[in-house]
């Protein structure tokens, strides 16, 4: 059981790695913003699986923290004051289309 759980965690980590590489390259700012979300969900899954694989219940708390805070980055980005409308130069030197 422990090996199976570790293998599952490794598989999810691999999926996370592939997703990260894709998102970091992705054209458009939204793709990069999704990276935090991906890491939050996958990281929580990995922490939970490893917690049961090595019998370390404290890792469930790490998963809880990741789950709780994953959405905050997206929340900050959604504020109007953080958009391109104020105080930031438009496309040519900032965002890549």
């Amino acid at each position, binding site marked *: 059981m422990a090996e199976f759980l570790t293998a599952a965690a490794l598989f999810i980590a691999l999926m996370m790695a592939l997703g990260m590489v894709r998102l*970091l390259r992705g054209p458009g700012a939204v793709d*990069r913003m999704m*990276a*935090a979300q991906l890491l939050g969900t996958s990281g929580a899954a990995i922490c939970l699986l490893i917690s049961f694989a090595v019998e370390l219940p404290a*890792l469930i708390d790490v998963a809880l923290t990741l789950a709780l805070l994953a959405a*905050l980055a997206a929340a900050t980005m959604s504020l109007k004051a953080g958009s391109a409308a104020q105080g930031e130069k438009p496309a040519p030197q*900032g965002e890549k289309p």
Partner: protein
Amino acid sequence: MIDAFALLLTILVLVTAGWIAVARDTRAVVFGFIGYGLLLSLVWVLLSSVDVALTEAAIGGGATGILLLRVAARLKVEPHPAPGRAMRISVGVLCAIVTAALAAIVLTLPDPAPSLAPLTAEHLASTELGNPVTAVLLAYRALDTLLEIFVLLLALIGVWSLGADRYWGGAPAEWNTGMPAPALAFLARILPPFGIVFAAYLFWVGADEPGGKFQASTILAAMWLLVVMAGILPMPQTGGRRIRAALAIGPVVFIAIGFAGIPMAGGFLAYPEGFAKPLIILIEAALAFSIVAALTLLVAGPAEQAPRS
């Protein structure tokens, strides 16, 4: 299988770090950095350092992420000339030298590495704590924790000094200048109760299991910032009496208990026999108030509105 895991994470961390170093767009780099912080917390998990993993997840995903995003959004980016070839080569060589030195130190450590861990575990019973990390932070090396809260307050004063003089004591600029997105209002109403309960749990369980005041305070600060972002609470006034009291109570209680230790137990910050755990919890509670206030104000920024009344 854990080795394969470690290898995968290492490669991913290196790739992310490399990407952060070469990417051009500020906002993208900040998101890469948030991802880097979350990856590091997984690395700490693999190293079995759950306390550090908790802190890294809370700070890297919460406080630092929000802070950097805020700063990146408000930076007026002026185009500047890229550094010349000679500069880039010399910086690269310097970084390579530092990396090689660190690698040499780590790889030539004697095996088993010298460590105070057995000594720590031996005396754990007299502190009545079950978590050796908490024992180190608040019993064996309490002086370092005292200095840490001073450093935090100094950093806060440094951030405050960035504001104009006429705004001293006022509130930081409002983050949300329009109606908050409905999903944000939803988040700000639903998450904080969970966050508060979880933070209280982490604070309490830190005595015997990984956790403790710092992780709990970071989560509370993140929840406070979320509520402010959604417009449910106003930005806190940096000169407000209650917030200044919250900032001061941690160090004051800590120093008071420290000095009380001189007559009662023979040294600054020495705990009398049998009273160690209640005193530690009292210090942690007072520090938690200060850390929550300090972290929230650090991320909120310097005052940019005139003080009310």
